[in-house]
């Protein structure tokens, strides 16, 4: 439908154009002919006057003569007939009324001529000549008024004035018919000539219009082609991909700027060369040259209308990877190919980099996994080692515990028997035995103290010593303690002074251990001081946000050297080896004090000078940390 519509539109416009051309042409003919007749009529008028003057300039009536009537007739009548249509022909050329008027006037001029020549038969040819001239209009209709005028003229003058028209006095009344018949006879040919002429004119107009149309279409097609080319050139020039057009023999026809940049050839260098020679590495040219003819023959190939990757070569000889798509395009029936190519060096490089990165990551991942495994193994080993160490400590602790038990049992008997014997000796007043038995008892008790001390240290080291927290009044605890330790301190003729600050109040801690600490320190002080003073001071102290109870035991005894104070809290390191012999003791007392203080989150320190005395300061938190859950120990 749209096509037909368009065709219809085109043909109607061609027809309209043809009609316009025809109209313009006929109008032009009419105008030209009108002007021709304007001139012709003027000439006829003047010619008529001259002819009248020449044939009968004067009318003789005897000897007098006057200007012949015909001269006046030629001047006046000729003027009346000719002037108006001649003016119309000049002023309004081309109008139908003008040419009808002219046709009428021309025939009237013929009639005048015939009349002025006295009906001379030869002048009737003027009528035929005029008709022929009128046929210049190519309009058969002008012949109608002309013929009517001739016929009427012949009828009327034939009836009333035959001499004027036929040159005879009497004429057959049907003679006009013969004249009219000749006129019509000529008319027939003229009408045919007019119609043919018009038909030819019309044909010419049609052809011209068609030609014009064709020219226009061609021009449009040319413009379209030019535009299309400009468009595709613009597209190709900004395309990021290389676009190479080649003909069926593989010769480069077009080479876009991207291709210039990529391959290093200018378009003028590239065009006309075989694509294979310029852009395909030598070792692959064969495959390409095989593929192209196969495509041409079959119209299909693996290479067309799909993307693939191959290697290309630059002007400098550098080989690089390209992604290629080849599409067949036809131009005026000649097979052509568009090759689209993209340099994928960068892409390959980033793909390779990505692959390498991934590989590195995997390696790193593997290494990490391996490291994790090694670490896990190490942790396992460490755990085993730790368990072994713990087992060893526990075994040692258990060994000590059972050793303690085994030592205690005979010791129990020794002490009981020695006490029993001592009681018996007292009853029997055997003084020497009493002293000896006291030595056995003392040795037994020392051994017991030693066993107890070792056991306590062992428990602390094995982490089995726990705090039994209870709230007790410090003052009361000290009073009770003094009952036990007082006699020990005063033994060497020492004075015992106690200063307990009023605000000390109660503390929440392990009562037994606190007491043990003070007992050890006070008995030590008493032991190493003679005829001196032992002082116990108790105060509260703030240290940071924590409240401590500070116990200070000062004596005026033997004191210690700097070196001795540094080792005093280690087990079995009394001030020196002679000390034990001289003063007794297990060598564990201060070690236990130190461990107990640590266990209770407190501290112990000492200041001492030889022969001047020592001062031990113990600080214990007013509130001990909550007791841990005691470890269950088997019997």
């Amino acid at each position, binding site marked *: 439908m749209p096509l037909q519509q368009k065709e219809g539109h085109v043909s109607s416009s061609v027809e309209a154009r043809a009609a316009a051309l025809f109209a313009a042409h006929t109008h032009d003919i009419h105008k030209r002919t009108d002007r021709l007749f304007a001139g012709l009529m003027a000439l006829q008028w003047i010619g008529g006057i001259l002819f009248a003057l020449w044939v009968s300039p004067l009318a003789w009536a005897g000897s007098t003569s006057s200007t012949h009537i015909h001269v006046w007739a030629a001047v006046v009548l000729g003027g009346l007939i000719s002037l108006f249509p001649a003016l119309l022909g000049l002023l309004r050329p081309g109008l139908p009324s003008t040419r009808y008027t002219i046709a009428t006037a021309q025939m009237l001029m013929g009639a005048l001529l015939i009349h002025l020549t006295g009906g001379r038969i030869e002048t009737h040819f003027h009528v035929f000549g005029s008709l022929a001239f009128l046929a210049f209009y190519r309009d058969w209709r002008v012949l109608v008024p002309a013929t009517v005028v001739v016929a009427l003229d012949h009828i009327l003058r034939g009836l009333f004035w035959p001499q004027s028209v036929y040159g005879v006095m009497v004429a057959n009344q049907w003679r006009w018919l013969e004249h009219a018949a000749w006129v019509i006879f000529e008319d027939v040919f003229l009408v045919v000539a007019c119609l043919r002429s018009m038909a030819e004119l019309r044909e010419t107009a049609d052809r011209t219009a068609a030609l014009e149309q064709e020219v226009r279409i061609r021009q449009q097609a040319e413009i379209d082609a030019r535009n299309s080319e400009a468009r595709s050139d613009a597209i190709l020039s900004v395309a990021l991909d290389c676009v190479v057009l080649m003909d069926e023999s593989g010769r480069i026809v077009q080479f876009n700027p991207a291709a210039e940049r990529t391959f290093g050839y200018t378009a003028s260098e590239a065009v006309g060369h075989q694509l294979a020679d310029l852009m395909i590495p030598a070792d692959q040219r064969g495959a390409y040259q095989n593929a192209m003819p196969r495509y041409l023959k079959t119209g299909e190939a693996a290479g067309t209308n799909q993307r693939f990757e191959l290697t290309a070569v630059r002007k400098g000889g550098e080989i690089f990877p390209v992604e290629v798509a080849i599409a067949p395009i036809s131009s005026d029936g000649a097979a052509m190919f568009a090759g689209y190519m993209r340099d994928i060096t960068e892409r390959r490089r980033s793909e390779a980099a990505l692959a390498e990165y991934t590989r590195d990551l995997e390696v790193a991942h593997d290494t990490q996994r391996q490291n994790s495994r090694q670490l896990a193994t190490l942790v396992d080993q460490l755990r085993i080692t730790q368990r072994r160490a713990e087992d060893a400590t526990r075994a040692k602790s258990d060994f000590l*515990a059972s050793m*303690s*038990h*085994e030592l*205690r*049992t*005979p*010791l*129990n*008997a*020794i*002490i*009981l*028997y020695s*006490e*029993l014997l001592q*009681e018996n000796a007292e009853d029997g007043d055997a003084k020497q035995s009493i002293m000896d038995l006291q030595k056995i008892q003392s040795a*037994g008790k020392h051994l*017991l103290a030693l066993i*107890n001390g070792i*056991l306590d240290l062992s428990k602390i080291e094995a982490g089995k010593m*726990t705090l*039994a927290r209870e709230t007790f009044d410090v003052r009361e605890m000290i009073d009770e303690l003094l009952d036990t330790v007082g006699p020990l301190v005063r033994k060497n003729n020492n004075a015992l002074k106690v200063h307990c600050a009023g605000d000390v109040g109660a503390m929440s801690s392990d009562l037994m251990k606190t007491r043990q600490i003070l007992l050890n320190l006070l008995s030590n002080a008493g032991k190493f001081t003679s005829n001196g003073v032992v002082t116990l001071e108790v105060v509260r102290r703030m240290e940071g946000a924590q409240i401590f109870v500070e116990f200070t035991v000062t004596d005026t005894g033997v004191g210690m050297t700097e070196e001795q104070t540094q080792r005093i809290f280690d087990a079995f390191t009394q001030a020196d080896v002679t000390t034990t012999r001289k003063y007794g003791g297990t060598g564990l007392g201060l070690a236990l004090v130190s461990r107990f203080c640590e266990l209770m989150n407190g501290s112990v320190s000492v200041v001492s000078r030889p022969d001047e005395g020592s001062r031990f300061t113990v600080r214990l938190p007013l509130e001990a940390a909550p007791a841990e859950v*005691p470890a*269950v*120990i088997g*019997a």
Partner: protein
Amino acid sequence: MDVRSGATILVVEDNEASRDALSRRLERHGYRVMQAFDGSQAVSVARTSLPDLILMDLGLPVLDGWDATRQLKADTRTKHIPIIVLSAHAMTNHRDMALAAGGDDFDTKPVRFQALLGKIEWLLAGNGAAS
């Protein structure tokens, strides 16, 4: 010296020397002493003789001190008898376990005899947990 003469104490101890020495010392202080050398014997002697107080060792053959203590404290005939548990294991948790088994007091060996006498007198005066 014979503060509570006539009171009968059952000494349960597997070590012969310890048992003998302790018994003789108690006797010196005016107590009547009965002896048992394992837990099972201790239970039967206590049931038949109904002593006023029992000194119970823990590490005993046949029936250990804890079980013996538990049985005695579970028996209506003997549960009123105060028991002082003695142990050569000077661990605090032995003390707790002994008291949990029904013992009225605890002491470690070697025995501090004067202190032990004090505890015995205290319990015989009717201060035991079972009274």
